[in-house]
């Protein structure tokens, strides 16, 4: 088991970061008054961990007994019935899914599942009806229609089904949905907090962790806790005992983007553009999301550029990323950005050095 999973705190009283949030969640549960919840914050900040620990707090250890199901949902889309295949993770008390996997059908799937959950309400020993929890991941990727019909469903079935929504950005969750939930912001942990987690893992694994090295991993992680833990484990495989100045290997794809940045700073020509296109393709076929590639490329370029060019280049990065959202073929827009950059940079070189 990877350390990120092995050392994911299982209960709210065991978390190392976000202790304040965990305490608040404990309070919610102990007051028996759990509203719909929206967790939002950057990737790798600890949302999923808190949600799983919360479920355990509500339902006890049986919330951990989950099974993965690949189910076909027959959904009633107006005049016809459509089959939608979706993977769900469920225990007796909750169901978890990524509704955006259902694409255009997302809205029907969400409603269908909630209705089904409402039908089989669990009953406790006193014969009182309880509720189930539906965890929806990546709600920021949910279509507007799906979000709209969610708000209606949230009210109608609120007695039998509580929602826990998880999202990387709350800008993309509609106001109507947000105002029906208790909003919980999960910020990316600070470097010191990441160091605490690394030290905890080191202790459990019986490793000597030099302070400078831990700080170095934390700094390189860009406040992404998952990434820090993954890096830590990789370093352990590469060299132990650790030293303070041990090299921290960059991720392969980041190395690759960094090379692209050097390539286009060195030569601006159709031939070079063609070569870079091949590299961009390779990144995309390795499932690196295009906006991540673009942001990383910008990051590398900004490190090398003169300040007057920084404004212009970041403007075009925003421009082409927006275009990419509206369009369908990410490669066109990535390539357009590279071409634009080459043109800007070449003019700059000519006007500066003649």
């Amino acid at each position, binding site marked *: 088991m990877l350390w990120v999973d092995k050392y994911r705190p299982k209960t709210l009283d065991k978390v190392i970061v976000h202790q304040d949030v965990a305490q608040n969640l404990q309070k919610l549960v102990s007051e028996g008054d*759990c509203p719909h919840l929206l967790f939002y914050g950057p990737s790798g900040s600890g949302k999923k961990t808190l949600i799983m620990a919360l479920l355990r707090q509500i339902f006890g250890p049986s919330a951990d007994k989950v099974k993965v199901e690949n189910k076909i949902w027959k959904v009633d889309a107006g005049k016809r019935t459509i089959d939608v295949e979706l993977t769900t993770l469920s225990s007796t008390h909750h169901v978890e899914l990524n509704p955006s996997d259902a694409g255009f059908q997302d809205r029907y799937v969400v409603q269908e599942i909630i209705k089904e959950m409402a039908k089989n309400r669990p009953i406790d020993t006193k014969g009182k009806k309880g509720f189930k929890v539906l965890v929806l991941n990546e709600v920021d990727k949910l279509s507007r229609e799906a979000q709209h019909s969610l708000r209606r469903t949230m009210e109608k079935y609120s007695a039998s089904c509580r929602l826990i929504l998880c999202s990387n950005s709350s800008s993309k969750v509609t106001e109507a949905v947000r105002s029906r939930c208790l909003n919980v912001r999960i*910020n990316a942990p600070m470097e010191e907090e990441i160091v605490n987690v690394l030290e905890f893992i080191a202790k459990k694994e019986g490793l000597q962790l030099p302070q400078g090295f831990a700080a170095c991993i934390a700094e390189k992680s860009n406040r992404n806790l998952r990434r820090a833990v993954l890096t830590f484990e990789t370093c352990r495989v590469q060299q132990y005992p650790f030293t303070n100045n041990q090299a921290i290997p960059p991720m392969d794809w980041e190395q690759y983007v960094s090379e692209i940045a050097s390539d286009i700073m060195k030569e601006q020509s159709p031939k070079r553009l063609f070569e870079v296109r091949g590299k961009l393709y390779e990144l995309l076929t390795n499932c690196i999301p295009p906006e991540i590639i673009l942001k990383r490329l910008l990051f590398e370029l900004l490190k090398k550029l003169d*300040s007057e060019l920084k404004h212009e280049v970041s403007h075009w990065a925003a421009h082409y990323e927006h275009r990419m959202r509206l369009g369908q073929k990410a490669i066109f827009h990535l390539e357009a950005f590279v071409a634009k950059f080459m043109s800007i940079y070449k003019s700059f070189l000519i006007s500066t050095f003649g």
Partner: protein
Amino acid sequence: MGREIAMAPLMQSSQPWVEKYRPKQVKDVAHQDEVVRVLTNTLETSNCPHMLFYGPPGTGKTTTALAIAHQLFGPELYKSRVLELNASDDRGINVVRTKIKNFAAVAVGSNRQGGYPCPPFKIIILDEADSMTQDAQNALRRTMETYSKVTRFFFICNYISRIIEPLASRCAKFRFKPLTEEIMGSRILHICKGEDLNLDSEALSTLSSISQGDMRRAITYLQSAARLFGSSISAKDLISVSGVIPNEVVQAIFSACRSGNFDLANKEVNNVVAEGYPVSQMLSQLYDIVVDADDISDEQKARICKKFAEADKSLVDGADEYLQLLNVASSAMQVLSNMPQDMAF
């Protein structure tokens, strides 16, 4: 372990405060004096026209309609005399017609019961009426005429322009105003008393101002804060549940723009995103700062605001939050330090 087993009996949901503190009587609806006066009169004369309530969310429209209906008929007759339809019901043309027909067709008597006026008509409340299609509204027009002797319609909506003229012209229209901060404050204090909460004066004025005249929002924030932070609630607690970004954070971005230092601005933008603050919210708070600033010329303000608008649209399209905020910060920086904004290359 012991605690977890004790938790196993499933939690019951308690009543949200938005429902618990809904005024039960028309006279308790705050700030909407005109409609309260007219309806108080109705209680005496047992007479009332069709009504159209419009205005922003959380100003008391649904509350007022429900209150008058209850006061006219009392709990016993309410079910047989009042029909509530809202947007979560299926409101295709046929459904509306059939439901209303079935409801209105049963005749009513006019004997006073249990001290309630019980006038000889039924009330049909169409909440969120602006989400009805034009066709459905047109169909309703005839229904209204057919049953005009025995029914009164209450239409409720945010935008009066979405209600077709023939319907609107048959109603007495009342605009519900956003609540003032004083009135919000006194309602909030009333709830605090009922729930044994402690709110200092800073927290109170903060809550009134961040809710922007919407009482539902104020109550939701208050209940969220009470759930999370216990019975002593500070301004900071309220801000944290409302999604409003703390002023220092917004100011930090703005000063970075003024500094003319791109790397500093980039660092602040990264920080905003890492902290998980919604960039759309950041834009609207930055907007307030820019518009209020004394030392920025009107032309500069206009140029910065144009960038806000473009970024806002891009965000709605799903564009990346970091790139959009960075672009806004960089543009604002160029405007503020009078750098040439046309692309140099």
